[in-house]
């Protein structure tokens, strides 16, 4: 064990030396590298920030590096952090995935930096470890729920469903009208998780302490009926035959296009998809609405929310002060304005003083009431517990295409979660 540490340390310090050598050159010209994922949204907004920042600070050069998203991207981030070769500033998830990149060891704390005063505590709690804050919001908050095609709803005279039964009844009518009721895109496996992940508000409504018990190995998906419901919903839409014919091969961009153009009526997704719709099918942006994933009780109908992804500064950064200045710029109202201009507004901001423009797309307008007074919302499980099993997306593909039953899927996921908990070294596993 000591040997391992020594080995890793030597490697790290060697790399550190190399980095410092670079730093001497880099600091003179004020150089930063900025790693983001390759989504068109991320690239557009990062380019806009960098352009605005370097216009104010002409002596600074910022290189944008691009990586794939999903599991492939996790892999790159973890490996680069572990080898001390991370970019100065980088974009990554908050919540459970943030906990898995060993923040205390790898990241630069920003707890007492001036811009942090304007950031909401609910966000800080999902980018904190060991009593320090590490992250700054990259984007507005998101909701996980269901995009729907407004023209189809108008044509068939449907109401926004408040319960799962109403949702399934709507699906019946849409199907009877000869249209695809529910779009699924298992070609991008991660998109298959939405019915399960976005059901978590409904789980919390019935079992308020599920997250704590789950983290402590006391509650399981398979043995908590409210938690199995998400898997059952996935199974129900498949068994009812509501899915598009190519659900096994279609991809996330296909899904967004289909719900926008009316090739399908419902698409379970995170609201960050609004930005991509605005970019790829702008003519249909006004045709897409949004509602929370319905539970079994209309009274408690509410939205499962996702904290925004975050930007972090690597501890290995050669120019930490410059990095902090840039991150502070991104996390300011000015940063939000630049984002609004570059990719449009996709949801409420976590930064004080950030305003949404008056003419937000309908799907954003549909989401805002859940965040306002009298609206119900609750965080997704990944922001309440550090444990997220890596095989969930394969399991939800299986349940969602009839290969495995909901109960089996939930039980298999409990097994998968155990590995992650052990790897994180949590007590009680």
């Amino acid at each position, binding site marked *: 064990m000591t040997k391992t540490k020594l080995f890793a340390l030597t490697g790290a310090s060697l790399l550190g030396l190399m980095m410092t050598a670079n730093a001497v050159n880099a600091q003179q010209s004020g150089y930063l590298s900025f790693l983001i994922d390759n989504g068109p949204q991320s690239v557009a907004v990062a380019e806009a920030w960098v352009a605005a920042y370097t216009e104010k600070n002409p002596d600074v050069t910022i290189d944008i590096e691009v990586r794939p998203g999903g599991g492939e991207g996790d892999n790159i981030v973890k490996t680069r952090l572990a080898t001390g070769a991370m970019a100065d500033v980088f974009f990554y998830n908050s919540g459970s995935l943030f906990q*898995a990149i060993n923040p205390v060891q790898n990241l630069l704390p920003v707890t007492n930096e001036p811009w942090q005063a304007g950031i909401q505590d609910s966000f800080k709690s999902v980018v904190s470890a060991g009593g320090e804050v590490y992250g700054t919001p990259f984007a507005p908050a998101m909701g996980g729920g269901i995009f729907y095609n407004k023209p189809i709803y108008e044509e068939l005279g449907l109401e926004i469903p408040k319960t799962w039964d109403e949702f399934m009844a709507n699906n019946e009518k849409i199907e009877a009208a000869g249209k695809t009721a529910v779009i699924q895109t298992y070609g991008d496996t991660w998109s298959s998780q939405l019915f399960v992940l976005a059901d978590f508000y409904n789980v919390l409504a019935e079992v308020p302490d599920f997250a704590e018990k789950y983290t402590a190995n006391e509650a399981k998906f398979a043995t908590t009926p409210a938690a199995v419901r998400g898997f059952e919903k996935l199974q129900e839409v498949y068994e009812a035959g509501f899915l598009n014919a190519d659900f096994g091969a279609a991809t996330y961009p296909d899904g967004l296009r289909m719900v926008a153009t009316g090739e399908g009526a419902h698409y379970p997704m995170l609201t960050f998809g609004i930005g991509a719709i605005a970019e790829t099918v702008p003519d249909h942006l006004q045709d897409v609405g949004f509602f929370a994933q319905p539970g079994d009780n209309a009274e408690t109908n509410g939205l499962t929310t996702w904290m925004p992804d975050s930007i972090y500064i690597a501890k290995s950064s050669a120019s930490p002060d410059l990095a902090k200045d840039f991150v502070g710029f991104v996390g300011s109202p000015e940063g939000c304005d630049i984002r609004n201009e570059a990719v449009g507004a996709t949801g409420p901001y976590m930064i004080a003083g950030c305003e949404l423009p008056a003419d937000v797309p309908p799907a954003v307008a549909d989401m805002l009431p859940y965040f306002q007074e009298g609206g119900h919302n609750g965080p997704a499980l990944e922001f309440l517990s550090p444990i997220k099993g890596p095989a969930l997306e394969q399991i939800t593909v299986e349940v969602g295409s009839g290969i495995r039953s909901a109960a089996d899927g939930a039980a298999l996921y409990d097994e998968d979660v155990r590995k992650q908990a052990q790897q994180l070294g949590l007590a009680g596993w």
Partner: protein
Amino acid sequence: MTASAVPALKMQRRSLYPGWFYAPAAAVYSVLFLAPTFASLYFSLTRWTLFDATFIGFDNFAQFFREPFLIQGLVNTVIYAVITSGLKVVIGMALAVMLTSQIMARGYLRSVIFFPVLVSTIGVGMTFTVLMHPTLGMINQTLAMIGIQGPGWLVDPKLALFSVALVDVWKGVGLATVIYIAGLVAIPKDYYEAARIDGATKLQNFFYVTLPLSRPATATVITLSFIGGLRTFDLIWAMTKGGPGFASDTVASVIYKQYQAGFYGLSTAGNVVLFILIAVLVVPLTMFLNRKQGHE
């Protein structure tokens, strides 16, 4: 031993170069190959975060064998290796027989069959993923034109592994054919002449002359494609990523997913299992094939 000791000594005296000239190569080999191999044996017994390794004995191996989709990956790997190497032997042999006979455009056909071997595996995988799309793919659209509803090649869990295996055969059969052509050309013409004098039919020619005498080529093709099939990863990852669900997972793709998830110890244990699996299956196989060859 004693008989050969004398020339060996002579050789040693005559050699201009001292043994330690091997040292640089040995150092590179130890650092880049031996050290990681033994380190991985150690890390497979730990829970490893790249910074810290906690010794947990054989827990990783227990975990590896307990999980349903890891076992399924193991079974899939063997199925995949058997199918691909079997088909490559049969089709490769048939093509080689055809391409060594007097047919038109022989040289052109030979290059056409070898061509897929030269194309990047990822490129092939992505191309076939598009062709095999259940509704928009060219394969199913062609089938639809003659009134057949094509299956979901890559999205039907019962078919996915076989679809990928077929693409693997399409891509790899050229190499098998070339090996067989070399083997067939090396068979002395005398045997065929003798067979003709005995009045053998074409079929008898094939089964009693060509087949037994091309055994060395068969051994090579089987060994190469079987090992290739066991550690196959790139094509599966490009086409299905092991899906739908876990239906086309092989040991290599399962290991990669564990690594992606940050379970470094567990994925290293998987690599040790794959190493042992290949050794256990391939060593006896080569011994069997080579012994037969010696009997000829």
